[in-house]
C-alpha cells in the first residue's frame, strides 16, 4: 500500500516569504506528526494531530509556524516570514492511533531559505 507522501520534495524560497508543506498520511491513520531535521541532527518534534485537532503543538518554535489538518487526513505545515534558520528537512509521520505503535515516516520536504 501507499506510504506517507510529502510534497514538494524540495522547496527553495527567499527570506520573508510564506511556504506551505503538504503531508498525505497512510489511509486510516488517525495520528499525524510533523518533525524538523536539521543537518547532522535527529528529528525534532513540531506538532501532533489526533484526527482534526492539534493535540500537542508544544514543539512549534514560534508563531510563524502553523499546521492544519481540516478533514483528519491531509495536513499542511505553514511557515510565515521564513528565515534562513528555518532551512531543514521537514518530516511527516503517521500512525494508526495514539497507542505506542511505530510511526511511519514520509521522505521529507527539504526547505531552503535563501
Amino acid at each position, binding site marked *: 500500500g501507499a506510504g506517507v507522501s510529502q510534497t514538494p520534495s524540495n522547496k527553495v524560497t527567499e527570506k520573508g516569504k510564506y511556504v506551505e508543506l503538504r503531508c498525505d498520511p497512510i489511509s486510516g491513520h488517525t495520528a499525524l*506528526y510533523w*518533525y524538523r531535521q536539521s543537518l547532522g*541532527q535527529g528529528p525534532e518534534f513540531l506538532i501532533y494531530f489526533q484526527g482534526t485537532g492539534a493535540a500537542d503543538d*508544544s514543539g512549534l518554535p514560534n508563531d510563524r509556524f502553523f499546521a492544519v489538518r481540516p478533514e483528519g487526513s491531509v495536513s499542511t505545515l505553514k511557515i510565515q516570514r521564513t528565515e534562513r534558520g528555518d532551512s531543514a528537512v521537514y518530516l511527516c509521520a503517521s500512525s494508526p492511533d495514539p497507542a*505506542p505503535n*511505530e510511526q511511519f515516516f514520509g521522505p521529507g520536504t527539504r526547505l531552503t531559505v535563501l
Partner: protein
Amino acid sequence: AQSVAQPEDQVNVAEGNPLTVKCTYSVSGNPYLFWYVQYPNRGLQFLLKYITGDNLVKGSYGFEAEFNKSQTSFHLKKPSALVSDSALYFCAVRDMAGTGRRALTFGSGTRLQVQP
C-alpha cells in the same frame, strides 16, 4: 522531559563482525523505545520497538535490541554486520505516562560504517 543520548557519532565495523550502536534514555515514567534507520535521501525506516515484555527485542534485517531498565539503555545489536547496513541510526523514546508527550524524542544519530 524525555531525552535520548547516542554517545557515538560514528561506529566502524568490519563486515561479518558483530555490531553495537549505543543508546541511553531519560523519561519520567516507563519508556517506549524505538530504533529507526535512515538511508541517504530516504525517510526514516522503523527497525524495532520495545513496549513491554521481553527485554530482548528482535526486529527487521536481523537487528535486535536489549532493554536494560537499571542502566536506562536500549543498545542496538546485530550478530554479523553487512556492508548494506551502513546508514544513519536513530534511537527514539516516548514516555509511557499518560501525561507524557505522544511524539517521539530522537537521539542525534549514529552513523554506522561497515567495511568490506
